[in-house]
């Protein structure tokens, strides 16, 4: 690439990223301590009341919450930075092990959902924008609004109910299979949750696409393209869509980031052992290390996606330096 990031820009970016991540780490640390209950009540529930003070004290030491807040934070941060994400007591494995199995599920789900959603969203958006104010525009916009209005859990439970009861087909009822163990089963299990997530992604992508296209189509250079005798279809893709990509890519990046954060409800309904489920279980059990480290992993991924989006901007628009 001939355009290189000027070093000042690079360092400003780096500084803001580090500040953001630092802020997130403090925020999640504090929130976890503010909500009622701790690791002991999280694992023992009401039986905690039967414990003697000595037992509680030793359990606090076991979970590492006997230290001061500063001590806890720095001990977690210190180990997190050296690649030790902590220990998930209830699962009996390290958070790293847990994440290793959950993260690929979430990434695959997010990828499938985003790809499906972007293809659907851009198609419907182009369909809508091709004739603003027409019946097809109305139909496209109605789809966008519907997809935005129907919550994922409604769509997900409806799908599960209909597929399982009417067709007797529900691949997610079986044990989860990774694509390396059983690609075909994995694909079937990914299909429905990806569909649900994809529709949620498609709605904002469609709306962004439509408005970006409508804005671009009135630009002078589109008239130039038609004036050159370029075929209508080519103008639509090569000139109009190409020049509308920046907001579409932005929206796609944001949506993909959300999905990577774990589609908690969708993963739960379709019994996908992804990050959403991991973090939800960890919150319920007050597994501080698991929650904190998982959130940090999300945050880092989100930052990475923003970085990738920025690189894509530069590829799309040569004016962005």
């Amino acid at each position, binding site marked *: 690439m001939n355009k290189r990031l000027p070093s000042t820009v690079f360092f400003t970016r780096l500084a803001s990223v580090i500040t953001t991540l630092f802020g997130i780490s403090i925020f999640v640390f504090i929130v976890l301590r503010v909500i009622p209950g701790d690791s002991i009540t999280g694992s023992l529930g009401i039986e905690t009341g039967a414990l003697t003070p000595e037992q509680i004290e030793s359990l606090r030491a076991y979970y590492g919450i006997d230290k001061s807040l500063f001590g806890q934070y720095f001990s977690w941060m210190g180990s997190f930075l050296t690649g030790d994400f902590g220990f998930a007591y209830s699962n009996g494995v390290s958070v790293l092990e847990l994440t290793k199995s959950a993260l690929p599920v979430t990434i695959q789900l997010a990828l499938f959902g985003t790809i499906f959603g972007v293809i659907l969203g851009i198609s419907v958006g182009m369909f809508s924008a091709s004739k603003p104010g027409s019946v097809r525009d109305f139909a496209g916009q109605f789809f966008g609004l519907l997809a935005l209005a129907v919550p994922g859990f409604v769509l997900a439970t409806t799908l599960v109910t209909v597929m399982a009861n009417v067709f007797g087909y529900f691949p997610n009822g079986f044990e989860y299979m990774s694509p390396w163990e059983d690609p075909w089963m994995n694909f079937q299990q990914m299909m429905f949750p990806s569909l649900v997530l994809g529709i949620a992604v498609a709605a904002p992508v469609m709306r962004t696409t439509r408005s970006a296209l409508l804005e671009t189509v*009135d630009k002078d*250079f589109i008239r130039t*393209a038609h*004036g*050159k005798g*370029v*075929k*209508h279809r080519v103008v639509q893709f090569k000139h109009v869509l190409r*020049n509308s990509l920046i907001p579409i890519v932005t929206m796609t990046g944001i949506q993909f980031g959300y999905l990577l954060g774990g589609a908690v409800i969708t993963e739960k309904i379709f019994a996908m052992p992804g990050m959403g489920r991991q973090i939800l279980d960890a919150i319920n059990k007050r597994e501080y290390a698991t929650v904190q480290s998982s959130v940090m992993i999300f945050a880092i991924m989100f930052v990475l996606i923003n970085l990738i989006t920025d690189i894509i901007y530069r590829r*799309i628009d040569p004016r962005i330096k």
Partner: protein
Amino acid sequence: MSSPLIKVSNLTVSTSDDNRTLVNSVSFEIAPGEAVGVVGESGSGKTLTALSLLGLLPRGVQATAGSISYDGKDLLHTDSETLRSIRGNKIAMIYQDPMTALNPVMRLGAQLIEVIESHEGQSGDATERVLTAFSDVGIPDPKRAYESYPHEFSGGMRQRVMIAMALLLSPELLIADEPTTALDVTIQQQILALVMHERRKRNMSMLWITHDLGVVANLVDRVIVMYAGRIVEVGSVKDVFTNPQHPYTAGLLASLPKASDKNRTRLVSIPGIPPKPWTVGESCAFSARCTRADDQCRTTLPLLRENSSTQAACFHLMGEKR
């Protein structure tokens, strides 16, 4: 006179939603090799007239009556594929603002290649032709220009690229919509000289749209003066400039600053502003601003008529006694 290259008859352009007439019954011809200038203020309908020839009217505006005959076809009623095959190939256009007329995310070379590919398909020597076209219009480093993006070029250079693009397939008619308005004065002269040179070389017809009478004086053979959506005067450049018949044309010429004027007299101006074309109705659109207007002007629409030098749409021509 040989048969015209293009013949516009009673072209009427209106808005789609509330049917306001923007261009009203405009008729003119362009002969092969002839250069015609269309002069008028903003809103006189000159640009819409030009865009109609290529079917490039903006959204919400359409040609509602008339015909544009070219090569045995009516461009207003032909199918879109025929129109497309003519655009950029037989009739090409250069636009007012070179800063916005080029696709910002495409390399300049690719934007010209596209013209060739749209009309001739894949062509082995396309790159070579584009480089030649760049050097023909005076772009210093064609190879670099080929790889450049529009934002890396100045306005004058971009307009040269637009001209190279328009001339690439040697069109029969070049439509120029105020191509110098957005440029610095020194650059304007260069662009005018370039277009004149290329036109002579190719014996190409030209339709030059401008609000600046001074620009067309040296550039075209015939002048069409438009006012509030209608043609008010047509004639050879010499006749229109030396012996204007329509009071509006006369007023326009009188308002040109003269370099020879040593007395520092006040610049003449026409009082008032042009009316919106759709509000005029059956009257002379200029009557409200005209010193020669009478009741007839305010109630009857004057049509173009022959007179001593030009054709003018006026009941009280400048050459006639009042």
